[in-house]
């Protein structure tokens, strides 16, 4: 992982996208996340909104934008479940913030780094979800780390395909 100095960081290219992409890509990810499990269940080890959050947060290299996008995606996901609204929101808020913060420090155009980050942030999101549900709220929650590991793997595979496709949406200067 190549660490960069502060001056070089400022010079790094910030990925820019059409305004429509900011609206439609997250929406498409939420719709797919809600619709695809009907076809893939019980092997629905993926989290499209998380992958999209990580992608935009890394690409924009802006922790605030990553935080806001993560919060919005997480809250939407929560609203579609019957669980409390905010658990996924908190998890993805932190993930978006960290992805945006890491994006400032590392070379995010490297595909391997992106995949590794996706894997680690997926596991972190699961851990935060578990922490908030079980320890902060005291809810009875059955948990399987194997499922979360498979989900992190699934997200990495999705990122492998999705990130190059989304890169094509970038505005080239």
């Amino acid at each position, binding site marked *: 992982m190549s660490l960069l100095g502060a001056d070089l960081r400022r010079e790094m290219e910030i990925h820019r996208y059409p305004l429509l992409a900011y609206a439609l890509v997250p*929406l*498409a990810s*939420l*719709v797919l*996340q*809600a*619709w*695809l*499990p*009907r076809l893939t*269940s*019980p092997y*629905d080890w993926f989290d499209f909104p998380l992958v999209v959050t990580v992608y935009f947060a890394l690409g924009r290299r802006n*922790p*605030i934008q990553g*935080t*806001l996008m993560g*919060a919005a995606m997480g*809250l*939407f*996901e929560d*609203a*579609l*479940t*019957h*669980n*409390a*609204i*905010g*658990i*996924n*929101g*908190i998890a993805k*808020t*932190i993930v978006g*913030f960290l992805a*945006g*913060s890491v994006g400032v420090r590392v070379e995010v155009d490297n595909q391997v780094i992106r995949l590794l980050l996706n894997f680690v942030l997926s596991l972190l999101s699961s851990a935060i*979800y578990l922490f*908030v549900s079980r320890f*902060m*709220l*005291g*809810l*009875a*929650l*059955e*948990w*399987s780390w194997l*499922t979360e590991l498979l989900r992190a793997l699934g997200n990495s595979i999705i990122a492998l395909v999705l990130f190059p496709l989304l890169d094509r949406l970038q505005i080239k200067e």
Partner: protein
Amino acid sequence: MESFFTRYRNLVVLLVILVAQIAGLAVQVRRASNGRNALDVDDQSGVRLIRLWANAIIGPPEHLIHASKLGVVGLWSDYIDLHNVREQNQDLKQTIGRLRLEQAALLEDARQGQRLQALLGFEQKYIYATVAAQVYGSSGSDRSHVFYIDKGAHEGLKPDMAVITADGIVGKVRDVFPHTAQVLAVNDPSSGAGVILETTRIRGILKGNADGQLEVVGILADQRIQPGEKVLTAGGDLVFPRGLPVGVVQKVVRDPDRDAFIDVILTPAAHLNRLDEVLVITSTEPRFPPQQQKDLAASDTLESSVSPAIRDQMKASEIMSEKLPGLIDPNLPSDQQPLRDSSNPNPAVPPPQPLHPDQFSPGAAAPAGSEPGADTAPKPHPKTPYTLPAAPSAAPGSASTAKPAANSAPQETPRRNP
């Protein structure tokens, strides 16, 4: 101060958003009666509004994708994949003819069963009003086994209505929106339904586990429970009617939390992961098809025209039974009893006396307390004289249908002299 916010604005924004969400979570969780925290069963208005917005934004594209998928599948199956359709059509026609005959026979059985159960006073629920709905989306999370259907409050759906398929139960309506509804599947850990094992008649609570499997909990270890046994709804949860298929026993495992208990893992009867169409039970009140309604109306009319006559007869018989003298009057000495009244032109014949008196003959029972077991012998009610039933001759023409007075004790029918 300004420099602080400028310097740490990323962290400040993060903290503000986190604190807002934590505060939002705090109002959604309540301490349950068992001491554990749980989510509010009924969403508060703000939470419900967020769910409504999310559903309104995500729902239409999901509908579109679902409709596109149905269109492609329909195109394939209706116009391209028509292999052996003619043979299938003929087979189906034959099946329809056979099923019509069976339906006619079963309809009669069902009506008879309903009449008998009504007589027995059972509170049996029948499924008569259902709304068919398409499943178009899910929660998108394996931690929340809910799905969305394209029918809502405008179609008469309400929370806690049962959702089924032809194969078995599926879940219950949780949140109802104007044109859509959220259904909590039976394999969600937070769901619950009363079930009974068909053969062993053991009852338990159905819920989902972390892997999305159905399991019956709250059962004491029992060797009789074997894989393959069917599980049905017990009907005590006020959501699912009794007797609907739930699944088949797959295996029995020990309850990890309680030693003496077991968990029964089920294979669901309905394909919970592949739901396309479901039925929502909107009413369990009996509702018959038009022809049956006509028949019932005709029988009701007939009954209402007959019942006044029957009521008159019963009333007359009651009056007559009150006016007629009792065969035994406790206020009169034995030689002046009506049975021995020589002035009666049609004296009633007293019950025949047994040739050899035994303990079963009236009046032959030993007094209570005279010997062990004596008080178990049947005794006539001291305040109920032996009275005649309604005299047939007193109500000519109605004697054959007259019933005994309601307040008269069961008794033998006395014979009259020719």
